[in-house]
């Protein structure tokens, strides 16, 4: 009723205004007063009424907008809940939260949630079902762990967002299992805003470091750990894991931290390797100088950064495509990458500004890392607990020192090895492969066989016999070891994991995880870094040499990097233009050989020829050519 009356008064006020315009009043004392009234009182009245009527108008308008935003929120949350995992330890004593990132059941959680649970976890989902899960890999420094839910293949995976795009003030939802309330597996939802981004939180106590993390005022309580943080459109932007509590006890005080999803996804592929992961170091210590520039105050002369020219007192300008303006900035960046990655780094010395791609190193030694882990993941003791761990879990668990679950390492390694070998049609160790082509200037011939590897570029010929050790061999000169790289490549493709021709030595292959392939020889490193793609990385060790193979989703080897000894400058070969060659398989037509950021040769392959060595024909034929 009041509302109506207000509008009537407003309307009257307005009609007076219109009236006034038409009849210009004479300046009598009465009309003057009326004018004054109109000039000041009427608008004042209108303002007052407008303000008074606001709450009423609000009531009329808000419900529609509220209803809409609420409806969209409800929809987003009901979808996001499906990927949330409520974790309980099998003894019922502990637990936390998790989030499914892959429909086959891979889920992320915190290391500090998964670790006390051991290798077997109970996971409740929104559908009311309890699933068995097995530990896959752990990252104790970054407080991440990968688990796999068993007994299903069409789990609801969260859609992954980009945590670099979030802003302070954005709405977010934390979903999880605070105080282990979700005994009916229905997760708890809390809502808040992003309070801060790019936060750096020091390792608390032992190892746990939260670099580049997200701060939110959405309630994060004990038990929310490992659970997802979603943005307003239901995309996964972080893994909740920590809060500031201090004297107020372990309950939310409006300050929760989530590991950024970009960091988690940098590690996710590598977590699937079943390993115990470390974090990265640059091999240099920096400090913010008095001029607020970030300078190198200590550098390890054995580090890749040093080899690539970084020196004491150089100013760090950017790393991994982000500007460095404080020590925390660099810590934030380094903390988000696994140690086997390479990142672009720009620095300035008195002379010039340089962009390098630097190979990161492990922040801890393997021993140091294992020592700091406590308690260690429990080993399965079949004699003591024959019934406590179900068969489905035992089938997927293999204990080995240095690994969280060796079963998953083997699973991934075999997947990649088999994938690679599928591309060749004659996987036999006695096959001899002849490659003919040309470099920019010369002819190119390579003969890869069991007894030896032969290489001829122009008039220069090189051979590696089966008996000689691979270590420290870097022929041809200025290639970093192309001859050896091709030997290992052949063995990986055709030998079923054994370099039989090399005195029966085993070729040890290890699945490292996933990582991008970037190197400084390229133009636009920055753009390439931004658009980086992660490849499976398979590490092959023979004698003292190491070769990393970068394998894409079609199991094509896109690049290989050979180290004649662990700290050597590497020989990089980029394989491209894969084509099918009759009787041999899908193989690359272009080899780009790079050593010390310079192209050694770009080989254009004309033909591949496969012959069995014992018929002798091929060898004679080649010899005849010479």
């Amino acid at each position, binding site marked *: 009723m009041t509302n109506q009356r207000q509008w009537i008064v407003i309307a009257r006020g307005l009609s007076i205004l219109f009236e006034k315009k038409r009849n210009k009043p004479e300046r009598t004392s009465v009309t003057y007063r009326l004018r004054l009234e109109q000039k000041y009182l009427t608008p004042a009245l209108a303002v007052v009424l407008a*303000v008074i009527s606001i709450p009423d108008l*609000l009531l009329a308008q808000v419900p529609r907008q509220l209803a809409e935003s609420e409806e969209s929120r409800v929809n987003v949350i009901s979808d996001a809940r499906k990927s949330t995992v409520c974790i309980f330890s099998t003894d019922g004593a502990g637990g936390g939260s998790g989030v499914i990132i892959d429909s086959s059941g891979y889920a992320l959680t915190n290391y500090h949630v998964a670790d006390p649970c051991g290798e077997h976890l109970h996971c409740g989902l929104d559908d009311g079902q309890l699933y068995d899960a097995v530990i896959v890999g752990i990252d104790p420094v970054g407080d991440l762990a990968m688990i796999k839910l068993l007994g299903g293949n069409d789990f609801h995976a969260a859609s992954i967002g980009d945590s670099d795009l979030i*802003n302070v003030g954005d709405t977010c939802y934390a979903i999880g299992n605070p105080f282990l309330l979700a005994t009916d597996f229905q997760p708890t939802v809390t809502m*808040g805003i992003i309070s801060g981004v790019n936060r750096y939180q020091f390792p608390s106590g032992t190892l746990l470091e939260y670099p580049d993390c997200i701060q939110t005022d959405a309630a994060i309580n004990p038990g929310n750990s490992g659970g997802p943080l979603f943005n307003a459109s239901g995309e996964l932007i972080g893994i909740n894991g920590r809060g500031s509590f201090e*004297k107020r006890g372990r309950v939310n005080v409006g*300050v929760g931290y989530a590991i950024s999803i970009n960091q988690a996804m940098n590690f996710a592929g590598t977590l699937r390797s079943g390993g115990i992961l470390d974090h990265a170091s640059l091999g240099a210590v920096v400090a913010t100088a008095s001029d607020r520039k970030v300078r190198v105050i200590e550098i390890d002369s054995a580090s890749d950064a040093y080899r690539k020219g970084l020196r004491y007192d150089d100013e760090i300008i950017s790393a991994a495509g982000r500007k460095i*303006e404080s020590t925390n900035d660099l810590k934030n960046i380094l903390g988000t990458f696994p140690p086997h990655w390479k990142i672009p780094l720009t620095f300035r010395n008195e002379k010039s500004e340089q962009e390098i791609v630097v190979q990161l190193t492990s922040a801890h030694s393997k021993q140091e890392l294992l020592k700091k882990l406590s308690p260690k993941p429990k080993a399965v003791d079949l004699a003591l607990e024959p019934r406590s761990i179900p068969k489905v879990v035992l089938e997927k668990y293999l204990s080995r020192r240095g690994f969280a679950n060796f079963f998953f390492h083997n699973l991934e390694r075999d997947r990649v090895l088999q994938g690679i070998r599928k591309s060749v049609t004659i996987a036999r160790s006695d096959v001899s492969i002849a490659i003919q082509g040309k470099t920019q200037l010369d002819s190119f011939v390579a003969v890869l066989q069991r007894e030896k590897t032969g290489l001829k570029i122009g008039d220069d010929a090189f051979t590696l016999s089966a008996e000689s050790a691979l270590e420290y061999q870097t022929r041809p000169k200025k290639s970093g070891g192309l001859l050896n790289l091709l030997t290992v490549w052949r063995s990986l493709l055709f030998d079923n994991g054994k370099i039989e021709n090399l005195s029966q030595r085993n070729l040890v292959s290890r699945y490292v995880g996933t990582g991008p392939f970037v190197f400084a020889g390229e133009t636009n490193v920055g753009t390439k870094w931004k658009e980086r793609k992660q490849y499976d990385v398979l590490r092959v060790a023979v004698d003292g040499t190491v070769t990393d193979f970068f394998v894409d989703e079609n199991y094509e080897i896109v690049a290989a990097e050979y180290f004649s000894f662990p700290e050597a400058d590497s020989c990089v070969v980029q394989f491209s233009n894969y084509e099918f060659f009759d009787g041999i398989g899908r193989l690359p037509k272009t080899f780009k050989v790079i050593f010390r950021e310079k192209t050694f040769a770009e080989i254009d392959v004309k033909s591949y020829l496969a012959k069995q060595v014992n018929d002798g024909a091929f060898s004679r034929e080649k010899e005849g050519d010479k």
Partner: protein
Amino acid sequence: MIRFRCYFSMVVGFAIMSGSLVADAQIKVINQMTQPKLVKVYGSGGISGLHAYQSGFFVSPDGLIATTWSHVLDGETSVVTADGRKFKTEFVGMDPGLEVALLKIKSAKEACFSRKSILKTPFTGQQCFSLSNLFGIAVGDEQQSLMRGTVSAITKLDAQLGKYDSAYSGKVIVVDLIANNPGAAGGVLVDAGGKFIGMLGKELREKNTQTWLNYCIPAESIFESIDAIRSGERVENPKTKPATPFQLKLVGIELVPDVLQNTRPFVDDVIDESPASKQDIRLDDLILFVDRKPVRSIREVNAALSNIDRDRTISIVLRRGEQVLTKRLSRLDDK
């Protein structure tokens, strides 16, 4: 012209209305416009659980900073601005009632809160945002933490007499967000338009329930206090006591003999025709506050009075049976 004004005021009215539903994009704007006005304050502390940091904000373009009066300001104090510049500060003064302190840095052009940026009529149920460097999370040029909540109540802190250990007993704006954390004191509470609602106070814990209060001191009071400090009216640097302090006998009050460590300050006698008797102060009244400072013993009464000049008017809060009374006393009323 008049019509235009009228329409304009209605448009403004609608704008205010739509502002009550705050979108993510708008929060981003609030954050961006407020951050440059904030500083991180560093000083004494860092031992036995005392934090050595708190928050503050500019109140003049030439580098005047308001913050909370606390142990952090006991020694040399430095501030870091939103863009990462670091300054040593000069102590201007403080108001013991509000526990507001003013610091000064040598600067010329800072974004600041002013009287113009005060939200005049905060209301219960209003959406609000706190910005502070709680827990000292942000360092250097990193942004201070933003939190969202609602104004839960606008009330007086002394409504719960003695329950909080606070010198301040005036109007407070209570919020539902957990704003008052270590280091948050001196931070700001703003509305959806970035208007200044108040300054986050020190951490206060209710003595009986052990719950923490989340509140701020209203912007109006803060600016009154700032003006008073600047004009020298309330420059009470606690380190310098007045030469001629206030004494209760000057206004005609005699307290019970101070025999115990914590003798409760009961009135033992009131001299006839004295300012106290004119104010109807009676035998057996218990003094609870002197100038908004809680006093639990005669010693504390004397300590509180020793900071006040004899010529000033003081306010005391008394308990008489179940009643709580506020009285203003001055020895000059005698004449």
